[in-house]
């Protein structure tokens, strides 16, 4: 018994002393310790390794104990197109201030700049990832932070770029203030819950700026998604909050600003959709709220497929879009109220700021193009103008009940 108590006290002391006794190991080419690998081999759990500027070519660097790695003066760690640069197999690891470059490329393995199979409390901060296949690839981890990094994939064929930040089966992750450029998906979440993505810029990625699959209860805010194959795709997911993001110039024959496929109970608030082919395309989605968003200069502002129900659109601004709203059926199961539409031609006799006649955002031509895409050629022709006027008087193809009963006379101030 006495031994047991003594042992416990000893343990307690070692635990208390651990941070205080953590050593600092300095790595410098030409110094006493010249490789990161040997520094890791010598280090005890909890130690800090400071790596001085220089280029380190050491193959795959495996981290198997809790360590803090800090680069001073952006040391370059080069994978020489062969290996995963850092592989983390421990908890409480921090990697900060490096330039990580030239990871291997493999169609069978997901090689990354920093890969981790199960490392809770991993921190990846202020690194530069250049020409890595995947940038950061994290599986099965909780409480990870990826912040302040830049990712720049080299211009290779599509299949030779992995995702910038890739999380699989993680929870409580924070992805903050990163810049991602030229990957397959900028940020990819598969089975990731209770996480936050904020302040990132994701552009020129081959597929999506941000991609959610089966990832519930997450939030993304204040990000910029520009010039991607498509801005953001949220799929097979529930309870996602999307606030104050910018979806800019996601343009091309299959490009969306925001693709919503089979999602529910989500909030899309205060976002700006600027010059996208289709700002929001939604299918099989329900019970979501679209509020205070700005749609400017898009081909289609919203493509609301008939498979969607119970969504509400209110207090949004729709200006200079070719089509404000289009749908592929006549069922009206969504609520559209109190939005501002620049195409509204009604009047406000009682001066309450609300138009006195309803606005029908779906025009006949949008319905025709939905069925026969090539008919878009006739857009702005006189014939179409006549048909549109006729349709306004006797609705035949447009869903009659799809209307905004209280259109705002003035745009909302959403800046």
């Amino acid at each position, binding site marked *: 018994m006495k031994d047991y108590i003594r042992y416990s006290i000893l343990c307690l002391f070692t635990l208390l002393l651990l941070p205080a006794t953590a050593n600092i190991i300095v790595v410098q080419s030409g110094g006493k310790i010249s490789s990161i690998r040997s520094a890791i081999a010598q280090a005890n759990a909890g130690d800090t390794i400071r790596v001085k500027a220089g280029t380190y070519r050491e193959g795959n660097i495996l981290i198997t104990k809790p360590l803090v790695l800090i680069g001073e003066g952006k040391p370059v760690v080069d994978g020489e197109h062969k290996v995963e640069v850092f592989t983390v197999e421990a908890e409480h690891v921090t990697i900060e201030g490096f330039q990580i470059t030239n990871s291997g490329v493999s169609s069978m393995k*997901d090689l990354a700049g920093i890969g981790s199979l199960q490392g809770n409390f991993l921190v990846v901060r202020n690194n530069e990832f250049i020409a890595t296949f995947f940038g950061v690839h994290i599986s099965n981890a909780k409480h990870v932070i990826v912040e302040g990094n830049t990712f720049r994939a080299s211009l290779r064929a*599509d*299949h030779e770029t992995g995702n910038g930040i890739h999380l*699989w089966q993680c929870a409580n992750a924070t992805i903050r203030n990163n810049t991602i450029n030229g990957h397959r998906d900028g940020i990819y979440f598969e089975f990731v819950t209770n996480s936050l993505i904020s302040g990132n810029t994701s552009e020129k990625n081959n*597929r999506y700026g941000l991609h959610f*699959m089966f990832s519930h209860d997450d939030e993304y805010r204040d990000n910029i998604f520009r010039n991607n194959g498509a801005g953001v795709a949220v799929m097979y997911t529930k309870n996602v909050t999307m606030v104050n993001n910018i979806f800019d110039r996601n343009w091309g024959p299959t490009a969306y600003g925001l693709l919503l496929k089979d999602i529910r109970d989500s909030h899309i608030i205060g976002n700006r959709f600027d010059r996208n082919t289709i700002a929001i395309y939604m299918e099989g989605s329900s019970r979501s709220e679209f509020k205070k968003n700005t749609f400017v200069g898009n081909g289609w502002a919203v493509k609301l497929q008939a498979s969607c129900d119970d969504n509400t659109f209110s207090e949004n601004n729709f200006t200079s879009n070719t089509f404000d709203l289009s749908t592929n059926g006549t069922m009206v199961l969504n609520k559209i109220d109190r939005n501002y539409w620049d195409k509204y031609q009604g009047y406000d006799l009682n001066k309450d700021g609300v138009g006195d006649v309803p606005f029908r955002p779906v025009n006949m031509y949008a319905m025709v193009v939905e069925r026969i895409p090539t008919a878009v050629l006739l857009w702005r022709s006189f014939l179409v103008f006549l048909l549109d006027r006729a349709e306004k008087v006797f609705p035949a193809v447009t869903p009659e009940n799809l209307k905004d009963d209280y259109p705002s006379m003035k745009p909302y101030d959403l800046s």
Partner: protein
Amino acid sequence: MKRIATFIALAALIGLSSACNVEPEAIRYGTDNCHSCKMTLMDKRFGAEVVTAKGKIYKFDDVNCLMSFVNSPEVTSRDMKYTLVTDFSQPEKLIDATIAFYVKSPEIKSPMASQVAAFETEEAYKQHKKELNGIYLTWGELTAQFK
């Protein structure tokens, strides 16, 4: 007279060639979208295609997207002239889906999380089955499982 004969021959040729046009086409990765999930096809180890008797082509990024289409009222099995999947071990190669060998394993990270890879030959499937620690499935089992 000769002219008319040439004309008829030409017309017949055009008619014939359009009748022969019901053929699969290669998937354009990075451009084509999956008919079911709307995602852009990216991963050349996965991908599937259906060609109908009328020559309409549908593309898919994963076996489960193909399955949801096969099981949907959009198409009947009689309409389907070709049903193709990509051989996992020979990226981009389309093979007959109904006689392919399938392996299901959590190790397989397919675009829509079906965890299924297809193989053309028995050797390839055996090798990968061991490597990926998966189970073997036939087309019939697959269609039943994803119903």
